[in-house]
């Protein structure tokens, strides 16, 4: 079934089988592989994207339900102020290890900073709880979110 999705500001015609999660449409139909598959059951956050400004697990969102929604992925997050600040902070603090979870971490961190300009450690725990990092880069993610908040404050 042909549907039209608005991804990173551009309209894309896609033709997924009914019931296909957005994750696989992004990765395989649109070759946007920055959004990762980690569990498929909403337990790891590697597949996090923004749908109408909300951080969502793309392994759970069906593509056919998203016509008319604004979808933002890791590939374009750097063009938002919070996205740029987060990427800068991630670079300054060398947060990444294997990197496989980091697209999702960044998408969740940006959502946090969009909601709360100066998050507390408790806010970070709450917003980042669904993003697992098997390399355990958590201490750096925490520090980098605080740093990104500082960068945005200028």
């Amino acid at each position, binding site marked *: 079934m042909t549907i039209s999705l608005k991804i990173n500001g551009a309209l894309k015609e896609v033709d997924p089988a009914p019931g296909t999660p957005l994750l696989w449409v992004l990765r395989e139909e649109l070759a946007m592989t*920055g959004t990762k598959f980690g569990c498929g059951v909403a337990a790891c956050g590697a597949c996090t994207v923004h749908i109408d400004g909300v951080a969502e697990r793309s392994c759970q969102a069906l593509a056919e339900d998203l016509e008319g929604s604004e979808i933002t992925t890791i590939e374009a997050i750097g063009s938002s102020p919070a996205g740029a600040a987060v990427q800068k902070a991630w670079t300054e603090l060398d947060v990444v290890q294997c990197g496989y979870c980091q697209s999702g971490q960044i998408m969740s961190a940006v959502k946090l900073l969009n909601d709360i300009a100066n998050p507390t450690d408790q806010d970070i725990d709450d917003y980042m709880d669904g993003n697992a990092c*098997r390399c355990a880069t958590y201490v750096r993610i925490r520090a980098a979110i605080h740093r990104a908040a500082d960068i945005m404050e200028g």
Partner: protein
Amino acid sequence: MTLNTTRRKFLSGAGAALSVFVIGLNPKGVLATTSASGGNITPFLTIAEDGTVTAIIKHFEGGQGVSTGLSALIAEEMNMALEDIQWEHAPSDPSRYANLFFGGFQGTGGSTAMANSFIQYRTAAAAAKEMLLAAAAEAWGVDASTLSLSEGLILGAEQQAGIGDFVAAAGAMQVPEAPTLKDPSEFRIIGKEIRARRDTADKINGQAKYAMDVQLEGQMVVALKRAPKYGAKVASFDDSAAREVPGFIMAHTLPTGDAVMAYAQTTWAAFQARDALEIEWDMANAETRNSAAIKEELLGMVRTEPQFTGSATDLATASKAIDGSAKVVEREFYFPMLAHAPMEPMGATIEPTADGGVIMHDGAQFPTANNMVLGQVLELPPEKIQVNTLYAGGFFGRRATPNSDYVVEAALAFATTDRTRPVKLVWSREDDITGGYYRPAMAHRVRVGLDANGAIVGWDHRVAGQSIFKGTAFEPMIVRNGVDHSSVEGIADGAYTIPTQHVGLTDAVPATTVNWWRSVGHSHTGYVMEVMMDLLAEAAGADPVEYRLRYLDETNPDGARMATTLRLAAEKAGWGNDLPQGRARGIAAHKSFGSYCAMVCEISTDADGVVKIENVTAAIDCGIAVTPDVVRAQIEGGIGYGMGHVMRDQITLEDGAVYEQNFPDYEPLRMRDIAEVKVYIVPSTEAPTGVGEPGTPPAGPALANAIAAASGKRVTHLPMTSSDVEFA
């Protein structure tokens, strides 16, 4: 990482362009440049005409920071900024990219990447520098000793030029036999606080390519429906429901009989088709035990005389010493099976080439094993097989197994087709959690005799579990007198000098497949040793740090380095200072992979005894810390990995089938679990040793000892949540 096609072509040997300076090993394993050996060079670094220096990294980047570490070696010897070094993964070529600790085998593991590359990459870079200077000296008619190289420029008294100008001439220079390496006092990159991971840029914008991301024209995706129990085989299957899945192509039994393969146009379709397969299993040889029964079997084994002796002291001698002691401290321990669960599930793609060969795209931990498997399964000569190494989304040991499990599956999946289309094998998380190759379940029983002063007079240590190495190609290297050293490493060969210590081992009957898991045997021996040392300190009425120091003989390097590391961790954590109400500390120290790691874990407990890890303060002596911030990152990660599993993870069998399926029941460490980690590095001039694994073994016991300090409860059966510890 640069994946530029010209360089790729060049690497594969076609058209060695003269405009690139290449230094590496020639077919004889001797340092050489392109022109000196007619182009047949496997390089460690290349320099392009525009002056771009590219490190060719022989180990795969799975997050451990090797791309940064080896690039730093080159930057150091060539006086460049680390940020200016480009890099790419080396092709698979064991004759020249062998891990110097693995025999003629190219691979990554045992925390050896830096240790085996430290001199090799520096030597290549130092030679490159000398040859560039010689070429410039000749061109300018000056003595090379008047020239220097800095930030990609050759500087003379009157002239200067970019190194790119001399790449052709330098390639024709005599390769120095023993280039002069910098004295450590001259280091300006090695050991310095520089944050410039070479893989960060790719990993913060979705551009990094992992095996999971490979998409080739016309590829088929294969998902496997695996035997529900170890030892079960496919009897027959019905794919009529799978045929209804849009994108389904075909289904075949995996030639080993362990699974049925569903081929489809996309991953999602392959997963759907896989789930729709109806399979009759032959359960005749299937495992039927429960984990509870296996645990009792293992504990039974450590209560009786062990099968093998792994120490100079025999059981009778140790028993006699213990029987005659003033006080006996005795404990049994149990460790469940654990999955590695790297964030990227396993998978690889095999692409047919025009000449009848293949390219395997894989986050390849042991590229040499990939070559061997592909050669055997596809009956191809070595020259028809290429391995394209991609980023790995974590590994912790899992991307290599003694029999290359998922690589074999990919090869068989490709071999079962007409070999005209690329075939991509994709594992789901359920495949990963239930798919075997676990850290084996282990039991320990330790009896220690103390004299009236609390000094150790005898130590009887028995271990039981499934051997990782027996029956594999690695057995001759690891197994001695029946003892798989990886089952007992870290007990008798640790940093402590323990008198009259017997180590016994009993092999368990295999319940499933097992594998090396971050820190291998140290993942359980470290826990046992450090909980025991805490118990002994308590029995002796001594401070845990002071008691450990009694057994660290500082007249030998092992004891001295561990003692220094232990003191540093204790000092930085404020060991001995008063803590507020509801707080407690635990300490642990363990040597593994040539490195010494100690840490203090501070917890808080609420009125109900619910535990929260407040902070961890660690110290590491890994010799020269080439890139200190990467070292710290690895220890931070090792701590999280060690603590997370000890807290709540286990793989259990129910009537032979794995119960845990995905992250909800194999719960990863989360952001909220550890509030703070600080890592301190012991200054050192010793050769670099491992950092990927040594952070893991002391993490669990540091937490366990903190819990004991808070509540008196000694957790000896893991995971902690199964021993009634509750975490916030």
